[in-house]
């Protein structure tokens, strides 16, 4: 995803934006923004005329004063349904108590301004839409002021806006709600002045989430809670091995269950399956579990974790496709053997397991369809549903449903869950079909963080700093064979395999990085922070090892090794040192501090943990985190994202934090076999400190994840003297 982001950064500088207004039937102010990229226009050709999109695209001010702000993202915990409206409301000078967020349906106008598809990923919700939402707010405010000035026959320059009211000379005032309709007839300004950060009254404040109450009283509806008239529920029997095909089905017992409507075979993204449709989920699942299916597994690769481990480790001992070759290749051979480290690492497949099981609801009506999906990839899912139904994307009305987590699992390139729902709905015309993947299907269903092996050889200089670093990474490509490949595969290497290593901020003069992307019959996917989950672990544990050998303080060693231009990392290490020195220097007996730092998605993070060992497991008493994410839009959300991301990152240290395969079959079924962190597994306190900044805001969803596991393991090493290079962490 970073590759796509970098390429489009250049486009961002050139973009022209048009704001269009139209009058709503209800008499509200409607504003839509059209972003035009040079990528879609011939170089040097005139700009296409501004398009007018469906009304009420981003802001709707109703006569009662309520201001509806459309959020062009999925809300799945990251808090964007509060923070993007904050950005718009700031420039609009809106009365925050009247702001109501709404999640956008799939539409051209809601595509990510940089990625060109409607999505949540790459930690871009705020960073990519910050400027867009500020401009929308400022232009809307300018139109409201112009409308008031017209009414009072004064210059707009003598009017000002505050808290949803325009004030004019002589004590005149008018509420936004009364100005809204006439404001739509105002020309949309081409340029507007945006506020200086010193003028912000919302941005930078700890603003509570707008969805808290509904999520605490059971009233918030998620995709799985959808209940439509006449709706049926579907559950699919998936093959036990990826790509397996149905040979025969005995559904006699299943059909006997009262409420079962139909049972039939459907094609899947890999192989075929059997769909059960019933009045209720419970009936559908009982019927599905009662099917007797014979599967055709002929000619299918049976992936096996222990065999893959051997194969990957062997591959890691050979040079792969070269990603970085900096400095002198012979530097390693000049380092005496006593000053060399060879380290081999292994990482398992990981499932995302968001709390809300995967689901999608589709109603097919012949020449059109409607879909309700908790989706991170709205426009891609819309297109895939349309294709499955033989429709055009614009014939599919696509609603973005609130999601119970996602972490990448709802950003699936082949849209396999919505497509299954569409194929089933095709058989039940005019009937909404809610497809549910029970937890077992999710745990066993693939689309995992890929398994990886790393091999690193380090030649240490006489000064204790790494003089030569030779690194090989082995893991499946996430994007090979997909439309993302052209952008994200370079020199035969998927960028997501090496991100976090290829762009390391450590100053290592002779640095060689290569990678292998073997194919394996296991579907893989981005898992919150993607490649950084393993690259940061390897680099941060090795750098800590180097610091120990050099008998240097781990923070001081990192500062010395970092490039001077890695300003954000230097800043977070300084802040971490300041905020954690107190407790790090007064640790009780049997405790140790662990340090790590990493920059990804534009955000730098440094972390210190206080760890002891209880029952052969790490007990993490506290974590102190320092963050540099540019301008902090909502420090409360940032704090929550970092506290939560630390917990999420600990998934890979859990004793049962691995998906393994034997004879092509996934060995775990549910949370009893694949066990993410519970309350006792995460630090009791996590204090988050933000470096003050007015630079452009950068991501906060993924950057918290990579730092925690290496920090904990670095502390464990200081307690036990052992190295921990194979995850999951089965025993300390």
């Amino acid at each position: 995803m970073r590759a796509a982001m970098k390429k489009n950064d250049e486009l961002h500088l050139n973009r022209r934006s048009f704001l269009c207004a139209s009058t709503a039937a209800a008499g509200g102010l409607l504003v839509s923004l059209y972003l035009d990229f040079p990528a879609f226009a011939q170089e040097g050709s005139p700009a296409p005329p501004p398009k007018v999109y469906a009304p009420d695209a981003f802001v709707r001010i109703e006569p009662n004063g309520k201001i509806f702000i459309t959020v062009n993202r999925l809300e799945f915990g990251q808090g964007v349904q509060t923070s993007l409206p904050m950005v718009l409301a700031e420039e609009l000078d809106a009365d925050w108590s009247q702001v109501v967020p709404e999640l956008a349906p799939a539409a051209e106008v809601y595509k990510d301004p940089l990625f060109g598809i409607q999505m949540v990923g790459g930690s871009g919700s705020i960073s990519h839409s910050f400027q867009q939402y500020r401009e929308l707010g400022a232009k809307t405010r300018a139109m409201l002021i112009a409308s008031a000035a017209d009414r009072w026959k004064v210059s707009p320059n003598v009017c000002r806006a505050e808290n949803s009211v325009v004030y004019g000379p002589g004590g005149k005032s008018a509420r936004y709600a009364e100005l809204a309709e006439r404001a739509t007839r105002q020309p949309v300004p081409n340029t507007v002045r945006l506020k200086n950060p010193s003028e912000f009254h919302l941005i930078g404040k700890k603003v509570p989430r707008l969805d808290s109450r509904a999520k605490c009283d059971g009233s918030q509806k998620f995709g799985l809670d959808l209940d439509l008239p006449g709706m049926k529920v579907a559950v699919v029997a998936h093959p036990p091995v990826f790509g397996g095909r149905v040979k025969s089905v005995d559904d006699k017992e299943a059909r006997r269950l009262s409420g079962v409507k139909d049972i039939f075979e459907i094609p899947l993204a890999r192989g075929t399956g059997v769909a059960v449709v019933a009045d209720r989920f419970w009936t559908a699942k009982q019927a599905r579990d009662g099917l007797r299916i014979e599967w055709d597994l002929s000619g299918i690769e049976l992936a096996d974790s222990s065999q893959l481990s051997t194969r990957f480790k062997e591959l890691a001992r050979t040079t792969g496709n070269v990603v970085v070759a900096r400095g002198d290749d012979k530097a390693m051979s000049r380092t005496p053997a006593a000053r060399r480290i060879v380290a081999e690492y292994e990482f398992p497949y990981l499932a995302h397991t968001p709390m809300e099981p995967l689901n999608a609801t589709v109603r097919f009506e012949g020449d059109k369809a409607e879909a309700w999906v908790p989706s991170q990839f709205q426009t891609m899912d819309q297109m895939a549903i349309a294709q499955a139904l033989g429709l055009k994307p614009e014939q599919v009305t696509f609603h973005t449903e609130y999601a119970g987590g996602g972490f990448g699992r709802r950003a699936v390139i082949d849209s396999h869950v919505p497509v299954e729902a569409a194929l089933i709905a095709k058989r039940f015309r005019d009937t909404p079909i809610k497809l549910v993947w029970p937890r077992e299907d999710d745990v066993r269903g693939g689309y995992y963080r890929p398994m990886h092996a790393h091999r690193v050889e380090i030649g240490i200089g006489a000064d204790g700093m790494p003089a030569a670093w030779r690194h090989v990474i082995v893991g499946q490509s996430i994007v090979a064979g997909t439309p993302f490949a052209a952008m994200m595969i370079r020199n035969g290497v998927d960028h997501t395999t090496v991100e976090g290593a290829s762009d390391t901020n450590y100053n290592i003069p002779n640095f060689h990085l290569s990678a292998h992307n073997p194919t394996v019959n296991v579907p893989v996917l981005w898992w919150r922070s993607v490649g950084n989950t393993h690259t940061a672990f390897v680099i941060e544990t090795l750098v800590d090892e180097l610091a120990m050998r050099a008998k240097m303080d781990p923070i001081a060693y990192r500062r010395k090794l970092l490039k001077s231009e890695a300003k954000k990392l230097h800043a977070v290490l300084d802040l971490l040192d300041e905020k954690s020195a107190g407790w790090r220097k007064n640790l009780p007996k049997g405790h140790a501090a662990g340090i790590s730092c990493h920059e990804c998605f534009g955000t730098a993070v440094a972390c210190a943990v206080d760890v002891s060992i209880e029952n052969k497991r790490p007990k993490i008493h506290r974590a102190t985190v320092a963050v540099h994410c540019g301008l902090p839009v909502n420090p409360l959300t940032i704090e929550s994202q970092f506290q939560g991301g630390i917990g999420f990152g600990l998934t890979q240290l859990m004793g049962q934090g691995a998906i393994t395969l034997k004879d092509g079959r996934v060995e775990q079924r549910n949370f009893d076999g694949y066990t993410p962190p519970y309350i006792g597994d995460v630090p009791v306190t996590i204090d988050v400190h933000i470096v003050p900044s007015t630079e452009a805001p950068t991501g906060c969803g993924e950057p918290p994840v990579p730092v925690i596991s290496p920090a904990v393991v670095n502390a464990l090493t200081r307690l036990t003297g052992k190295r921990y290079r194979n995850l999951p962490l089965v025993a300390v």
Partner: protein
Amino acid sequence: MATYQLNVNGQSKKVDVDPGTPLLWVLREELKMTGTKYGCGISACGACTVHVDGIATRSCVVPVSLIGTRRITTIEAIAQDPVGRTVQNAWVEKDVVQCGYCQSGQIMSAVALLKATPKPTEQNIEESMGGNLCRCATYVRIREAIKSASQQL
């Protein structure tokens, strides 16, 4: 199929379902009370936690036929209880939720904890909340909210 008269949030509700249907699916699909969530179906995540005669119970593994006349309380009615209201308010005050999907279950477990142990220790909290999974890992703020509610009770 069998008919059951259930006491849900102080109201009598008649349902006609298979005796083996878990209480969770009776609440969600028959009574359309979707505040109680499905997360795993094997009592491993706590998202489906309700109170049965005041005891925190995983509704995904309790067949409706075993409920009888016991009082069922769900997230939709927990605000009517003074402890429930305090806990809910503490959750909002501490900005606990992220995706929010597990929070019905977290709140139901926290209310049961505070009713039995109004001044819980860290260990009490870890034990009582230890079966409630949150993939957003809002655990630090859950602890803070429980302590805040405890102080107000």
